[in-house]
């Protein structure tokens, strides 16, 4: 089942009355969505507000989601619409490419991401998380590190990774799983217990 079909399954589940399943979609896409909103809106509080409003609007509009577009595409259109209205309501002009270019002289795109930080506490936490992930990945044995990198960064399928690493697909699946678990173990102390994050 493809990623897109999984999203559809989750949507069907939400439409059948399981509100909690929506949390999985929010969890999956909110970081990506906020990154893209940061291209249109510079203030990190606004980004958070717009993102939250987007997910709420999307939830209400789920009965109209027909599944012929991918869920994320549909979500993204709602986000752009919401951001535009937000900016218009504040009499703000839409950002121009050149404005960004002129203000971000020395810094590449990462700077836009940094502006997402809201409170000092969450800034610290997100840095801790990023650092822990980096550290965990570097500490992995070569074959696990390669597998997880080819999957998450290069976006290769298990079959393609199996070709690249000259090993069976089952081994790829196992290596990726073990890599994730190793990284998750390093994150556990930072993220706290599951009770803290229950929804």
């Amino acid at each position: 089942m493809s990623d897109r079909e999984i999203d559809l399954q989750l949507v069907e589940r939400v439409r059948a009355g399981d509100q909690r399943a929506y949390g999985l979609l929010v969890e999956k896409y909110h970081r990506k969505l906020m990154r893209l909103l940061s291209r249109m809106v510079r203030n990190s509080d606004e980004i958070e507000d717009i993102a939250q409003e987007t997910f709420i609007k999307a939830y209400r509009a789920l009965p109209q989601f027909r599944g012929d577009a991918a869920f994320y595409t549909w979500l993204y259109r709602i986000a752009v619409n919401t951001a535009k209205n937000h900016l218009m309501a504040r009499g703000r002009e839409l950002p121009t490419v050149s404005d960004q270019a002129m203000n971000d002289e020395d810094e590449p795109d990462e700077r836009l991401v940094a502006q997402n930080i809201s409170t000092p506490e969450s800034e610290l936490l997100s840095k801790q998380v990023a650092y822990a992930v980096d550290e965990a990945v570097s500490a992995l044995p070569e074959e696990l590190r390669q597998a997880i990198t080819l999957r998450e960064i290069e976006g290769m399928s298990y079959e393609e990774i199996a070709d690249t690493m000259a090993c069976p697909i089952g081994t790829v699946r196992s290596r990726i799983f073990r890599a994730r678990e190793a990284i998750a173990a390093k994150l556990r102390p930072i993220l706290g217990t599951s009770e803290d994050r229950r929804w």
Partner: protein
Amino acid sequence: MNAVRHTVFGLLLTSSTAWAGAPLAQTEAAAWLQKIAEASRHISYEGVFVFQQGGASQSQTLMVTGRPSGAHMESRLLTLDGNPREVRCSQQVSFTLMVNGSQQQIEKRLNRRHFPDLLPENAAELANWYSISLGTPSRAAGRDCTTLEITPKDVYRWGYVLCVDKNNAFPLRAVMINDEGQVLMQYSFADLKLGTQPKMDGHPMPAMPEAAKPATGSPIEVTELPPGFNRIAAMRRQLPNRKGEVEHWVFSDGLTHVSLFLEPVQKPVLPIKGQSKQGMINLIKRQVGDWQATVLGEAPWATVESIAMHLEAKPATP
């Protein structure tokens, strides 16, 4: 063949079992086409549209603004995802601005047309090569719209389904489809405001050196073109991220565009055929005399092949 084509498009477009409308008479078709072409060229607009190619797997979101400036239009396109890219068009000049980290790159463009100006200024001519019928009304970008099916009369073009604003015929959605009714490419407004006073900020139009020179009288001749196609552009230019210059010619029937690139060969060229998913983009590379010809476009194989196979090296002048 036309009856079969209409069946295909009719079934595609209607969600009920009713047939789509019969093709309009040529004059009525021409009038509709012209009305749509003019709709985006005389009114100001600002909106966000999504462009999709090859199914929903790839999509881009772009912001577009347009406003009349004298007898012409000024417009601005801005990508909202992926690498920042901005296109600005005015009567005098059209250029692209790309930002890569701290670097800006400006390139002059040779065409001013982009969505929502899907149809050419002289759109009535298209009625010679495409038949038009009205489909079931629908909605797009929060507006009621009229649906038009633009069906090719022969094998040399892809078809379109257009959703245009019911009141003013402004294009809201354009879907390119192949002969099996599969969706190849789609533009779709997510948000649109008409008749506003949009600001055209952003980079002022810079003074730029010419990006392209007129084509040389190259020793290649096109002996035949598919019906309705004419050469609409010919220039000498550099390709993006490539050194050296090539000849770039563009053939079009007003809606379908095919490019020909000519460059001198260094070593013998093996002829190849290329195709994108669902055959939307077709490509041929072959040698003609001392030249390497690359023909490609969002057009059926027959079109690309016809153009590529009717290229001849002119005999050398003594």
